[in-house]
Structures are given as structure tokens and as C-alpha cells.
């Protein structure tokens, strides 16, 4: 009984104390919310960037983030003010939130740090949380600087045709040799098992979800460099420690986010740029892209910012290493190379051993790279893997240190390539009358566009249109409209044997059967081979067997289906001047049966990086056309 009173009093005082604590904190919360409203913090740009808000047509806001777990307010996706209030409230709550549960001040640490500074939050009244997981993650990353990574375009996979963008978080004390140990920040769509062609549709309409991940660079370098044989360009960025910390805090927050993945606009490039904007809001990179974001455009946008790029480093793919390595061998060494990849035991032969150690090493290194290339790209890798082991055994006997070769890129850096949108004005002569032409192409690069910065021998054209005015007939028309026109030439040689292929679909204008201006729509494709030589500078030759299906009122029975053969060449005359010529023959067994010969010759003279002059000649069924065009890239 005597003890009861102190106990009861103690309990009462204790609960009053807690109650007081709760009342005190809710007073402070209200104070902060009030202060935030007074400063209109929810309208500030940094809050918009943190929550990825974009203004909509109706003048409202909508966040690009689709995961409900990213928002603390039920209306957070569309209401910046409610989200800010809810965020402040969450800071005071003991409840743990997030995909990996943590206190809100840790899950949304970038928000916390920004609000703390903007509202001068007092650590006594709202103590900071102990963000163990974030700190341990940061420790693992060990950040020193940030590098933008651009794996170049890979034409044999639609998702990779335009390249890719990711960030690498360089570590303290990192050297060129140990940069593969750094972590990356990568944004990509999550594909369910057995995804096939449906990627093309679902990827475009937002049918997949995109996530951020931190895969070690060595895995990425291997994926792009060894398996897909894509060259990588690394742009080391100039960010301060504070900026890097901001970027990483937000990346941590984004672990709770997911976005509907839109291949054209909200893709890897867009999301990497959005992260960089967080580090330095004045960059304003992501907002430049309203219709689509191409990785190479992203690189260009960054390279154009004064002093943002510290250095650009080229990381050759395995294929490039093989090509350059073989170039550096003498004729007799190349002979040895050819023999050793077939019969590795020759590396132990006395004749081979007569070569100086450094030269033997050069031959064996290229041989090993080639055998690993085959092992990675063929379906029966074991033969190549075991030949490689024999080659490396011989290599391990060469004890002297041999310096690693420097590999020159095959094509210039992507930021120096022509811009992606192309417009043209021109004039021409079509079978007896003059015309003027205006054209526009949304993306990307054709075989005659200036090559610097682009993967050689690859053409991807989409959404292009040409308008013509024929004064003699007082006739304006859409002369051509291309939905897609892709050509991939893979010059074969003794080492690399891959077929070339092409696909196109769109509208054209033909002069047939008395119809001077008849529209024809169709699709076609082909498979063939290409070869290259270097008599002048560089020449490429190709041959295709093709099929085509076309519809037009100019045809008897309105359609024709058939196929044929085509052959052509592309020749670099000087650095600025390139010419092309082609010849094809098509027969149409179904529909309008009349066969067709086609001859064409084109040339391009690059006036500057973003300006080129083109002259085309085409002949079909004895109708000739000449066209002179000025192309602007912007």
C-alpha cells in the first residue's frame, strides 16, 4: 500500500512526461509545417526535382514516379504540398517506412537533408536518425567522383540500338586499373522471364517497370564489352563532394521508387540525367528532352556544359581489341596468329619461339582475345575455351613484362557526332521537271550522314518525311515517308563472319503505268554479306538478297510481292566526302509482275559537324531523278 502511491505517481508523471514529449514534438511539427508553407517550399525547384514532379497540361503537377511507396501522402503523386507536409510529419513518427524499412529521415534522406537546411531544423527538437543502412551503403560505395558511362549502340538488339547510359561511382584511391571495381547506378526495365518481341510494344507504352540498381562495373563492362562487343566511352564528371553526396542520397531514396519504363522518353538516359540534375540543379539536363531521350543526346548535352566533363576515356570492346591488336602485328606475325588460333600447340613450336618475347606476347594476346570472343559468342564454347587455355599456357612462359597496347577507337567520341534531328532543303529534277523539297527526320543516322561519333556501317532511320513542290504541275505532295529504315552492314573477314541485314517500311512515290505521281506503301527486308577494303581510305561493299511487298494503285491488281538482289558500295574519298552507288534487280511474281532495275548514286560532303550537302541520283524503269539537298542537324 505504501509503495502504491509512489508507483502510481511515478506512472502518472511518466505518462505526463511522455505526453509532454509528444505535445512538444507535435508543436514543433506544426511550427515547421507553418514555416514551410510560409516559404512555399513545395513550389521550390529542388522539391520538384526530389519528387520528380512535372507540370501537366492542366497546370497541375504529376510525379513521374509510379511506386506508391515513394509517397508519404496518399495524394503525394499529384500534390507537392501534401507530400511535403506528410514528409515532415513522417520525420516525427516512430514508424519505419520504405521498401527496406527505416525511419523516414533515412528512407528519404535527401528530402530530410534539404528540408533540414531550408527550415533550419533544430537537432535538439528533432534529433537526426541513425541511418545505419545508408551509411553502410555509402561506405561500400566509397565515393570520390562520378563518371558517366556510354556503351555505344548495338544494332542487333532493338533495345540497345541507340546506346545506353549509366553512372559509375568512382571510389577513393581508384586507379585506371581498378576502376572496374567501382559500383554503378543503372536504370533499366525489369523484364519477366522469356520476354521476346513483346518488349518492342510494352517497352514503348510503359508496360514494364524500371528500377535503379548498383551493379559492379566489372559486370557491366563484361556484359557490354565482352558479350555484346560494344565500345564504351567513360566521361569523368566534375562534381564537388557536396554534389556527389546529394546525388547518392537521392539514389538511396530512389531505391523505394519505381517508374513505368518508357523506351523513348523515360528511359535510362532520361533517368541518369535526372540524377545529375539533382547533383547540380543548374544543369537542367532532363528538362531538355520532351519527346524522346537518346543516350547519345544525353552525352552531347553533358559534353556541352563548360567544365562538367573532366576527361573522356575510351574502353575498347573485345572485338575492337582484336581488330586493333591484329593491325599492330607484322605480316608474318599475323600468319602465326592465324595458325595458332586453329592449332594452339604451334605456340610451343621452336620456330615460333624464335620470335622475341614481346612479339610472341603480342601474337598470343590477340589470339587469346579472339578465342575468348569465340567462346563468348558461339553456342559451342568448350573447344575455344580449351584452345585458349593452351594459348595462355604458352603466354605464361613469357616472363618479361610486356606493356599493354593502347587501343585506338574505331569511331570518334559520341559527343562529337552530328545531332540527331535532321532537316533538309533542296531542289531537284525528276524526269523532265524541277521540284523543290523540304525534309525532316526525327532520328537517327543513315549510311551517308557524317560518321564521326557513330557506329560505322549502321543505319537507323525512323519517322522521316519529305515534301515536294512541283511547279510545272502546281503539285505539292508527300514524296516519301519512312517509318523505319534499318541497315546493318557487318564486313566479313577471316575472323568475323556475320550476315548483314536490312529492313524498311514506308511510303514512296513512283511513276508507273501512266500515273506520274502515285503513292506506294510497302515493307521489305534482306539478308546479305558485306566486305571492306582500304585502298583509298575505307571502302565497303555489300550484296543483299531481298524481299518486298508493296501496295499502290499504280500497280496492276494494286499490289506486288517479290524479291531480288542488290549490290552496292560506300567509299570514303576524303574525311568529309563519301560516295555511294548501288544496283538492284527486283522481280514480282505476285501481283503486278513487271520487274524493275534500279540504279542509284549518292554523295555527301560534310560542311561542318551539323551541316552536310548531299547529291543523289536515282533511276528506276528509265525514269531519272536528281536531288541536291542541304542537311541541317539539330
Amino acid at each position: 500500500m505504501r509503495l502504491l502511491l509512489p508507483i502510481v505517481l511515478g506512472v502518472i508523471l511518466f505518462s505526463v512526461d511522455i505526453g509532454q514529449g509528444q505535445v512538444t514534438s507535435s508543436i514543433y511539427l506544426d511550427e515547421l509545417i507553418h514555416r514551410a508553407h510560409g516559404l512555399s517550399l513545395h513550389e521550390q525547384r529542388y522539391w520538384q526535382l526530389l519528387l520528380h514532379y512535372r507540370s501537366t497540361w492542366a497546370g497541375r503537377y504529376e510525379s513521374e514516379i509510379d511506386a506508391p511507396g515513394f509517397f508519404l501522402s496518399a495524394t503525394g503523386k499529384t500534390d507537392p504540398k501534401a507530400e511535403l507536409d506528410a514528409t515532415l510529419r513522417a520525420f516525427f513518427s516512430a514508424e519505419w517506412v520504405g521498401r527496406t524499412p527505416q525511419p523516414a529521415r533515412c528512407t528519404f534522406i535527401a528530402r530530410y537533408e534539404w528540408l533540414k537546411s531550408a527550415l533550419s531544423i533544430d537537432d535538439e527538437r528533432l534529433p537526426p536518425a541513425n541511418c545505419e543502412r545508408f551509411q553502410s551503403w555509402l561506405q561500400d560505395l566509397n565515393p570520390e567522383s562520378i563518371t558517366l558511362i556510354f556503351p555505344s549502340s548495338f544494332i542487333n538488339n532493338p533495345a540497345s540500338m541507340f546506346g545506353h547510359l549509366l553512372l559509375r561511382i568512382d571510389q577513393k584511391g581508384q586507379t585506371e586499373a581498378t576502376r572496374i571495381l567501382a559500383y554503378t547506378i543503372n536504370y533499366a526495365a525489369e523484364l519477366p522471364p522469356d520476354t521476346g518481341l513483346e518488349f518492342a510494344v510494352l517497352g514503348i507504352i510503359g508496360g514494364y517497370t524500371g528500377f535503379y540498381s548498383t551493379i559492379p562495373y566489372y559486370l557491366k563492362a563484361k556484359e557490354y564489352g565482352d558479350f555484346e562487343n560494344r565500345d564504351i566511352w567513360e566521361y569523368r564528371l566534375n562534381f564537388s563532394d557536396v554534389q556527389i553526396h546529394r546525388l547518392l542520397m537521392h539514389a538511396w531514396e530512389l531505391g523505394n521508387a519505381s517508374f513505368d519504363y518508357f523506351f523513348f522518353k523515360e528511359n535510362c538516359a532520361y533517368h541518369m540525367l535526372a540524377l545529375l540534375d539533382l547533383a547540380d540543379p543548374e544543369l537542367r539536363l532532363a528538362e531538355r528532352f520532351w519527346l524522346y531521350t537518346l543516350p547519345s543526346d544525353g552525352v552531347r548535352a553533358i559534353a556541352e556544359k563548360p567544365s562538367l566533363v573532366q576527361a573522356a576515356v575510351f574502353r575498347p570492346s573485345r572485338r575492337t581489341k582484336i581488330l586493333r591488336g591484329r593491325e599492330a602485328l607484322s605480316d608474318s606475325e599475323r600468319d602465326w596468329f592465324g595458325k595458332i588460333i586453329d592449332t594452339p600447340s604451334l605456340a610451343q613450336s621452336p620456330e615460333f619461339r624464335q620470335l622475341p618475347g614481346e612479339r610472341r606476347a603480342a601474337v598470343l594476346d590477340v589470339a587469346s582475345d579472339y578465342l575468348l570472343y569465340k567462346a563468348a559468342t558461339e553456342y559451342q564454347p568448350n573447344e575455344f575455351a580449351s584452345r585458349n587455355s593452351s594459348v595462355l599456357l604458352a603466354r605464361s612462359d613469357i616472363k618479361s613484362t610486356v606493356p599493354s597496347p593502347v587501343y585506338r577507337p574505331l569511331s570518334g567520341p559520341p559527343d562529337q557526332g552530328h545531332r540527331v534531328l535532321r532537316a533538309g532543303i533542296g531542289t531537284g529534277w525528276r524526269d523532265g521537271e524541277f521540284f523543290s523539297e523540304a525534309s525532316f527526320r526525327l532520328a537517327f543516322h543513315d549510311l551517308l550522314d557524317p560518321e564521326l561519333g557513330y557506329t560505322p556501317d549502321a543505319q537507323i532511320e525512323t519517322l522521316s518525311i519529305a515534301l515536294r513542290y512541283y511547279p510545272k504541275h502546281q503539285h505539292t505532295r508527300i514524296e516519301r515517308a519512312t517509318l523505319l529504315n534499318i541497315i546493318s552492314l557487318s564486313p566479313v573477314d577471316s575472323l568475323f563472319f556475320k550476315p548483314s541485314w536490312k529492313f524498311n517500311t514506308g511510303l514512296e512515290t513512283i511513276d508507273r503505268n501512266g500515273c506520274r505521281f502515285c503513292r506506294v506503301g510497302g515493307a521489305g527486308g534482306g539478308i546479305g554479306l558485306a566486305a571492306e577494303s582500304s585502298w583509298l581510305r575505307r571502302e565497303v561493299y555489300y550484296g543483299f538478297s531481298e524481299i518486298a511487298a508493296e501496295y499502290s494503285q499504280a500497280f496492276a491488281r494494286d499490289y506486288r510481292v517479290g524479291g531480288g538482289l542488290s549490290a552496292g558500295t560506300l567509299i570514303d574519298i576524303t574525311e568529309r566526302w563519301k560516295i555511294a552507288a548501288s544496283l538492284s534487280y527486283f522481280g514480282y511474281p505476285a501481283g503486278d509482275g513487271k520487274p524493275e532495275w534500279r540504279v542509284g548514286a549518292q554523295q555527301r560532303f560534310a560542311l561542318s559537324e551539323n551541316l552536310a550537302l548531299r547529291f543523289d541520283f536515282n533511276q528506276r524503269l528509265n525514269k531519272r531523278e536528281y536531288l541536291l539537298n542541304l542537311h541541317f542537324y539539330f
Partner: protein
Amino acid sequence: MIGKKLLLVGAMLAPFCVTPVQAQNRNTDTGPGCGLGKELWADANNQKSIGVQVLAATTNGTLGNQTFGISSGTSGCTNNGTILSEYRVTVFANANFDNLSQDMAKGNGEHLTSFAELLNIPQEQRAEFYALAQSHYRGIVESGENTPSAMLASLDRGMSAHPTLAKIIVK
């Protein structure tokens, strides 16, 4: 197809997310996702399952995003998406076996240097380590078991027997 490989990848790298159950009972998310990969790692002799299968994923697909997802515990892994330090050497050796073998045979190269970095070999002993690696290459190949684990074991033996490198332990 591609997705199957992704699944393999996610599963393969999953075991490296396993941590001992933490005393802190707020974060007991060691779910069923971890542990599946052990069976696949056991198959490491077949280059195809490690090499091409592991990494031939579509570029724009994630590489086992559940494993490396930032701050996520989706697959039951509690390591925030980074590799736990005790697994770094093994993951690196397995993922880079072909490039690492090349570098060992040459006695230099970025993979060998990075490997030395992960093993915490001091700068002044690097040259000896590279020479040791090169001299051990023949033994690994000729033993008949040319695999990452055999390589690690061989290096471990070599280093323990080496006068100056003995102090560094290879896991």
C-alpha cells in the same frame, strides 16, 4: 531466352546477399530468394553457365535487379544492393574468370590488379603477387580443374608458401 538468363543471374548471385540473421529484429528480411544460387554455383565447371548465361542479358533488362536494387530487400537480401565484403573476392573471381585467367598468364592487367586490390595486397608486394600468379597458371590448367575455385585454392597455397605473401589470406 533472355529472361531465363536473367532469372539465372538473379538466382546465381543471390547467395551473396545472405547475411547471418541480425540481432536487430526490425530487419529480418532473409527470404527465400537467397540460397537458390548455390546449386548453380556448383555447376561452375561449365563455362557456359557462368560466362554466357550469367551475363548475356539484354542491356536494358536488369541484371538481377532484386539482387542489386538500391536499398531494397525485395529478394530477401539485406545488403542494400552492394556485395558483402566477405564475398567480393569470390564473386569477382567467378564473374571475371576468363579475363582474370588471361591476366594471370600475362602477369599483369586490370583484372589481376583489381583482384590484388580486393585481396588487400600492399603495393610493394604487388610485383611478387603478379609473378606468383603467372607461375601458378600452368599448374591450374594442367591439374585438369580450370575453375575459379581451383584458381583461388591454388593461389592460396602459393601465397601461404611464399615468404612475404604468406601474411595475406585468400578466401
